[in-house]
């Protein structure tokens, strides 16, 4: 049965608008409608100037993250029915500069990403291919953490990112951990030094908002806590 949806959408064009506005749209939902379907409907039939990002439609690319009814979520993976209300409010992801409407500038996020050198650097003394066997405990431990699609939801949900522009944030710290925990990697200590800073791991206060909103069920808090432990143990000469 089609329900009448009432959708409030954040609209803002920095080039022409003085201030943001909310535009209202009413239309019936259809079965299994997702928020991506909602914004597509608005753009196709009601207001073709609405800007938003999407790509894969199936929760793999991380493009369509936006703030939906109180939380950052992937639009394509959020069913209207899961919101348990017909009133929907859409805003662009917080903690990012706004390009237009629901589109944000991911640049600052990826600038921070680069800081931790987010790529494996092989140890010279190991004969390639250096392998950690598939069943190994250490691989299992970081397996889930590798699923990150850089959607930015966790970064948006974190209050520490909201108040501190320099804080690296959950996604970046999570990625840093997956590489620092990789015994084949040659620059683990260098990476650890990057995160062992005031605006690195030490700004995390275990709020867990990141873990709550991650569409891949990653718990960045876990990675960050492990990083803190490594930072401390390094001072004692353990776990160099």
């Amino acid at each position: 049965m089609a329900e009448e949806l009432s959708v409030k959408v954040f609209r803002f064009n920095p080039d022409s608008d003085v201030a943001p506005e909310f535009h209202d749209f009413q239309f019936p939902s259809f079965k299994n409608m997702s928020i991506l379907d909602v914004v597509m409907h608005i753009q196709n039939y009601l207001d073709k100037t609405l800007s938003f990002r999407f790509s894969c439609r199936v929760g793999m690319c991380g493009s369509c993250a936006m703030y939906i009814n109180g939380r950052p979520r992937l639009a394509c993976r959020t069913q209207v029915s899961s919101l348990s209300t017909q009133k929907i409010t859409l805003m662009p992801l917080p903690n990012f500069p706004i390009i237009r409407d629901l589109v944000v500038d991911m640049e600052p996020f990826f600038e921070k990403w680069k800081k931790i050198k987010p790529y494996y650097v092989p140890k010279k003394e190991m004969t390639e291919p250096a392998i950690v066997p598939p069943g190994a405990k250490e691989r299992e431990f970081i397996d889930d953490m590798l699923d990150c699609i850089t959607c930015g939801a966790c970064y948006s949900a974190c209050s520490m990112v909201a108040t501190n522009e320099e804080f690296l944030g959950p996604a970046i710290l999570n990625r840093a951990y997956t590489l620092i925990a990789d015994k084949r990697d040659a620059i683990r200590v260098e990476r650890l030094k990057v995160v062992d800073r005031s605006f690195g791991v030490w700004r995390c206060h275990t709020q867990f908002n990141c873990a709550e909103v991650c569409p891949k069920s990653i718990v960045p808090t876990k990675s960050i806590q492990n990083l803190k432990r490594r930072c401390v143990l390094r001072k004692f000469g353990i776990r160099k």
Partner: protein
Amino acid sequence: MNAWTWLIQRISALVLLIVLGLHIWFLHFAHSGEVLHYSEIIKRLGTPIFLTLDILLLIFGLYHALYGVYSVFLDFGFGFKTRVLVLGLMIVAGIGFLGLGIYGFWVFIF
């Protein structure tokens, strides 16, 4: 630096759980809310155990408190110079209040 100060913060938390717990117990629960008299305090602070407990409370309490305040301040991402300034303030405040507290115990220490 960060890892050390953070570790001491956690240690101070543990110490405070014990020492503050004892402090509240002795001062309030141990004699069901009777108004504390100077004479009782003198007796207590005259013993090395209670004096030590109170001084531990002072040191670790101040460290924990000022680290916490500084942590909140850092959460707002101010620049290097401002951070150094506020850190200096924290250290001065810490030493100041510690000094004041020890001075209050002066008679009992010497």
